[in-house]
């Protein structure tokens, strides 16, 4: 390898890496180096502003949580209580929990914001989620057969998942997963689909049960017994309010997360495609490339980004999973510009468009149907060109 000058349009010395990757190995390497440079720059700049931000979000979350729990004592304020508690759970799970457990704030050395100590307000034990999410999903993003987040073992979310009559229920399963999302996330690590197919043994799950049961017990005790009981005669109202808050969080999280990898135009990969390096391993450039093509953003205002845990910047999150999420909007313009320069699609759109696209896919893939031709990068009809 000689030069690493970013010149995606000039004649390459060798051909493209594969039919799917329009870049030469040199260009792919240069692309990866540009991404590394962004990462390095932000890492060097981490400091008080990031710490202040996350502590402020935590303060809001704790305030909303306490306010929500307290307002259940005033029956007329019930809707407000539910709203406050829902917001608290959304902030806790997304902007705080998801991001803290990614290790985004480990550099602060604050045990309360440390990926190894933090646990979130859902029935899924953070410890188990970190394995399936941080390791499996973020390392093998959108590699069929490796990334269990493609359909979560329940849904058919990609044409290359072989159709079976079971998938006729795709929209029903998706709806159930939406309303029961925290339970889906909790049970995800049991890899039930792999047990059914014989790839995993039931005994393999044994070590997971105690942690899972402990977390479920604690969450249920708090939301469905202790806090309702503390409101005395208002027990049923508080019980219902807590259930609704959990439901609101489930529906919101499901919709944001499904827009991260499932809108039309998002690519999936085979294991063979991810062995582009000379040593038969994936190069860092290809890994970055796969993260861009395997993710989709949601456009919106600053408050929307906070409430989505900045997962609305799924592309930036997948490129830089360990950078504090508040930095994603700030690097997004640059990432977009680089993608444009290399002729790579940068999939983004408003929430309604991305959600619509995901639900259309859920329904379409319920049927065997004719294979839709795979969108080639930069040419997909649903793909907003980087220049847009």
């Amino acid at each position, binding site marked *: 390898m000689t030069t690493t000058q970013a010149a995606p349009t000039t004649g390459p010395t060798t051909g493209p890496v594969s039919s799917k990757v329009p870049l030469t190995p040199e260009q792919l390497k240069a692309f990866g180096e540009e991404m*590394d440079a962004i990462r*390095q720059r932000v*890492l060097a700049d*981490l*400091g*008080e502003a*990031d*710490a*202040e931000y996350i502590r402020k979000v*935590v*303060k809001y979350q*704790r*305030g909303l949580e*306490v306010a929500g729990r307290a307002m259940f004592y005033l029956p007329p304020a019930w809707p407000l209580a539910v709203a406050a508690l829902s917001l608290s759970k959304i902030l806790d799970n997304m902007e705080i929990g998801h991001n803290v457990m*990614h*290790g985004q704030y*480990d*550099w*602060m*050395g*604050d045990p*309360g914001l440390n*990926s*190894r100590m933090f*646990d*979130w*307000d859902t029935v899924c034990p*953070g410890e188990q989620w*970190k*394995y399936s999410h*941080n*390791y499996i999903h*973020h*390392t093998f993003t959108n590699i069929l057969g490796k990334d269990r987040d493609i359909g979560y073992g329940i849904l058919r979310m990609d044409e290359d998942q072989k159709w079976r009559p079971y998938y006729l229920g795709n929209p029903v399963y998706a709806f159930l997963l939406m309303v029961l999302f925290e339970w889906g996330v909790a049970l995800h690590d049991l890899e039930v689909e792999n047990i059914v197919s014989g790839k995993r043994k039931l005994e393999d799950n044994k070590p997971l049960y105690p942690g899972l049961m402990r*977390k479920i017990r*604690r*969450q249920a*005790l*708090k939301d469905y017994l*202790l*806090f309702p009981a*503390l409101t005395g005669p208002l027990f049923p109202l508080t019980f219902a309010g807590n259930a609704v808050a959990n439901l609101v969080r489930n529906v919101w999280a499901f919709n944001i997360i499904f827009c991260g990898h499932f809108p039309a135009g998002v690519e999936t990969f085979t294991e063979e495609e991810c062995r582009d390096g000379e040593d038969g391993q994936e190069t*860092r450039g290809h*890994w970055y490339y796969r993260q861009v093509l395997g993710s989709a953003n949601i456009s919106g205002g600053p408050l929307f980004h906070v409430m989505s845990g900045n997962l609305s910047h799924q592309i930036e999150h997948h490129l830089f*999973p*360990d950078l504090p999420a508040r930095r994603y909007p700030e690097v997004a313009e640059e990432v977009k510009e680089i993608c444009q320069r290399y002729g790579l699609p940068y999939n983004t759109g408003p929430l309604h468009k991305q959600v619509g696209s995901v639900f259309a896919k859920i329904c379409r893939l319920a049927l065997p149907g004719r294979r839709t031709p795979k969108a080639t990068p930069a040419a997909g009809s649903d793909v907003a060109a980087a220049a847009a």
Partner: protein
Amino acid sequence: MSFAGTILRSRAVAALTSPHGVDRYPEQINPMWAANEVRARVLSVHRETGGEHPVATITLQPTSTWRGHRAGQYVQVGVDLPGSRRTTRCFTISSAASLPGETITITVRAQGEARPGQSVSRWLVERAQPGDIVHLSQAEGDFVLEESPATPTNNHLLFLTGGSGITPAMAILRTLLRDGYDGRAGRRVTFLHYARSAEDQIFADELAGIAAADNDVDVVLRHGSVFSEFELRRLVPAYAETDTWACGPGPMLDLVREAYADSTRLRTELFNVASVVPSGAAEGDVAFSRAGRQAANTGATLLEQAEALGLRPTSGCRMGICFSCTATKSSGTVRNVLTGEESSLPDEEVRVCVSAPVGDCVVDL
């Protein structure tokens, strides 16, 4: 607070505040409200000595969760250094034994370069202001005045200290004088301290006062000289049969240990200074303390070196993004292979898949 504390530490409140824990809520209103954790507010900072490595005594008001300490113990102090990096170091408590919730002092020498961003001790000595909040552990350590029931309580006590190693001995001496009848230690005490110079003498005024008073305490201060068995024998001929507490830098303690040979009366505490090896070619040894394995540093990442020794530490992405492999590096310097950044903090959490040792390194794997 005791009733409120009992409530806050109850299982019911733990269940209500799960999964974050009760301490994560009151701190949002007042950092001095805690149920289990210990924090402290800086009340005052008093300079003891000047120079390149000045010493200061910091008075701390701990939260009500502080369980008190025995003289000679130390405490872990966590400080949010500039750039919001919380860093924790151990410091001896220099004040007399405390009861739960009581004020304590730590006496600290500013170590490391004259850049406050780099060291807890420098921050405490040069930056700390009354009102600042620091994070504490409970008191730890067994370098304390501990007497077996078989020993008479009025036996002779001997303290041998060097530099800032004076602090635990001072805490014990202060406790003896505070709790003794009529301001006396009530037993013979010999306090032999070595400082580099008169200007470097910590607690100079207080020690002069103690030396002048009729209180059973002999204070012997040596400035510029090193410990010698000859001098000790002249002061305390039966030193090897005298209960002795020695605290100071490594070379001094080596001489003291030599003088005491195999006497069981000697208790020592070492003041560690982390050694930093400049970056360069792979040198030194890498030790994995939990597995009890050690090998010459090959320059590869800690994960690869551990695996080369047949260990199978938890790991995931092997590219620094998933944090599955995070382990505690007890000592030594590591270089982040992604950023080239080097770090020498003891007891630091590192991702072993992207950390390569620079020189000797001990990892808790």
